[in-house]
């Protein structure tokens, strides 16, 4: 480079004619490059990225949900864990609720169409006092307790959730079971208008679950109407859901409209769909693998490392006696 301020560029800096002519081609190629890269990247995004769209605006604003009065125990009873609680954002955006879609974030996106008032629950079957009751009536019957439970999903993830609710046993006692009552069957709402996922025959709708009567009467078994001190968000099974902390999460049937006391073991949705993968009992058991993965360990949602899974999800002391003499490899 010359250090003089030359009025004309030296001949060495003059663009060769060939290169000058290629300028247009370079621009064209740059455009084609950018266009193709965008098409390839965009196509891949459309094919695969739907599951990782940001969820921020779907987290229910705590202000939208009514605070619930806790008149019973508050998270420090004999059954509560003091393990650190899974963040509210995770509890409300990582859900299996196939009535609103198959991806974990679908329920948070789509469940706003569910109308939880007015809502009635029918309690019938082998009961002396079968009845259909308004949800607000039911909750007025019992003091609401906070219970901090571990929840273990059959997919090997887990959470710690502060539920608000009352023991299912109290509700069952109110309808006075007959001597023939051996099991309790539960049914979820089935309304395609409110639950878009019902339009796909993924499962045999409506979702049904069941417990043995002694399991249902166990003081750990909770009917939840809230979590984190507020009304249950729709994606978590509003207005009324079952929580059985020593069983895999799919037993925790959501948005219950019917509870029936039965003599025979009721059919249950996942057991009907894939009996070799999902048993009626579904007790958390690190010894019995799921056909597609080991159940020996789990990942607490939000954590990186796995932790060993505890028998009966850590509630063995309270519930193992319910299964005395049963082979839990067969009765999984």
């Amino acid at each position, binding site marked *: 480079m010359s250090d003089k301020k030359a009025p004309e560029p030296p001949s060495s800096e003059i663009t060769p004619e060939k290169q000058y002519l290629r300028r247009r081609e370079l621009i064209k190629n740059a455009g084609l*490059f950018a266009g193709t*890269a965008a098409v390839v*990247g*965009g196509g891949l995004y459309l094919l695969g990225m739907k*599951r990782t769209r940001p*969820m921020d605006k779907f987290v229910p604003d705590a202000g939208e949900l009514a605070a619930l009065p806790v008149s019973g125990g508050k998270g420090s009873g004999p059954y509560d864990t003091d393990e650190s609680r899974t963040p509210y954002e995770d509890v409300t955006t990582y859900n299996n609720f196939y009535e609103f879609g198959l991806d974990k974030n679908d329920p948070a996106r789509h469940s706003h169409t569910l109308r939880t008032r007015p809502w009635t629950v029918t309690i019938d079957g082998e009961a002396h006092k079968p009845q259909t009751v308004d949800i607000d009536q039911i909750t007025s019957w019992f003091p609401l307790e906070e219970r901090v439970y571990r929840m273990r999903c059959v997919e090997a*993830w887990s959470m710690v959730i502060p539920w608000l609710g009352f023991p299912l046993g109290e509700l069952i006692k109110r309808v006075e079971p007959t001597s023939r009552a051996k099991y309790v069957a539960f049914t979820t709402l089935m309304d395609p208008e409110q639950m878009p996922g019902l339009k796909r025959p993924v499962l045999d709708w409506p979702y049904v679950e069941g417990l043995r009567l002694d399991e249902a009467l166990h003081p750990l078994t909770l009917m939840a109407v809230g979590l984190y001190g507020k009304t249950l968000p729709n994606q978590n099974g509003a207005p009324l859901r079952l929580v059985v902390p020593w069983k895999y999460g799919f037993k925790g049937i959501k948005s219950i409209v019917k509870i029936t006391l039965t003599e025979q073991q009721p059919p249950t949705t996942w057991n009907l769909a894939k009996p070799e993968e999902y048993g009626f009992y579904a007790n958390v058991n690190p010894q019995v693998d799921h056909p*597609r993965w*080991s159940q020996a360990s789990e990942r607490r949602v939000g954590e990186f490392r*796995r932790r060993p899974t505890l028998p009966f999800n850590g509630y063995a002391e309270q519930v193992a006696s319910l299964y005395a003499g049963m082979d839990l490899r067969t009765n999984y």
Partner: protein
Amino acid sequence: MASPPLPWLKPAVLVGGLAPLALLALQGAQGTLGPNVIEAVLNQTGLMALIFLLGSLACTPLKLLFGWTWPVRIRKLVGLMAFAYAVLHFLTYAVADQGLKLGPILEDITKRKFIAVGFIALVLLVPLAVTSTNAAVRRMGFPAWQRLHRLVYVAASLGVIHFVWRVKKDVTEPFIYGAVLALLLGIRVVEAVRKRRRARPAPRPA
């Protein structure tokens, strides 16, 4: 006649193909991958591996059906991208999900058929990636190289089976990929049959 060089094509496919990875990294850094980051990365890398595998298998049918030659130019790149995503998928499983604990990993591979077929698919892709260079083609001779690379048909099929068996209930999405694979392999079968017919000596005029 020499075909146009399309100098932008390979870099564009490379950049576009790495975009999902960049997005994953970005979302990971921002913490917007949802509550189960490992699951999100597993699902995305696995799906990308399958998409690129099917993409590499689409090159020949596109040439047969439409006479396009440009897909064949990027076939090697697309195949290597499939391998790269498959390796990332496996590493996510082995390192992040299983914490590199050999016992559980071996148990998964030997006891669970959905993991076994995925692992076999990955293993089958290794020799293909290793022999992806022009030098390897020369060293092996084209017929032997071509025979070896037909393993990709097996790998892609196992990849689809891996996806079908992984899904809990609704198999619509894996079946769509299965249908695409069946179409891509079907076109090859039809072409092979036609070629054989053509190769048969034509009846000579008397």
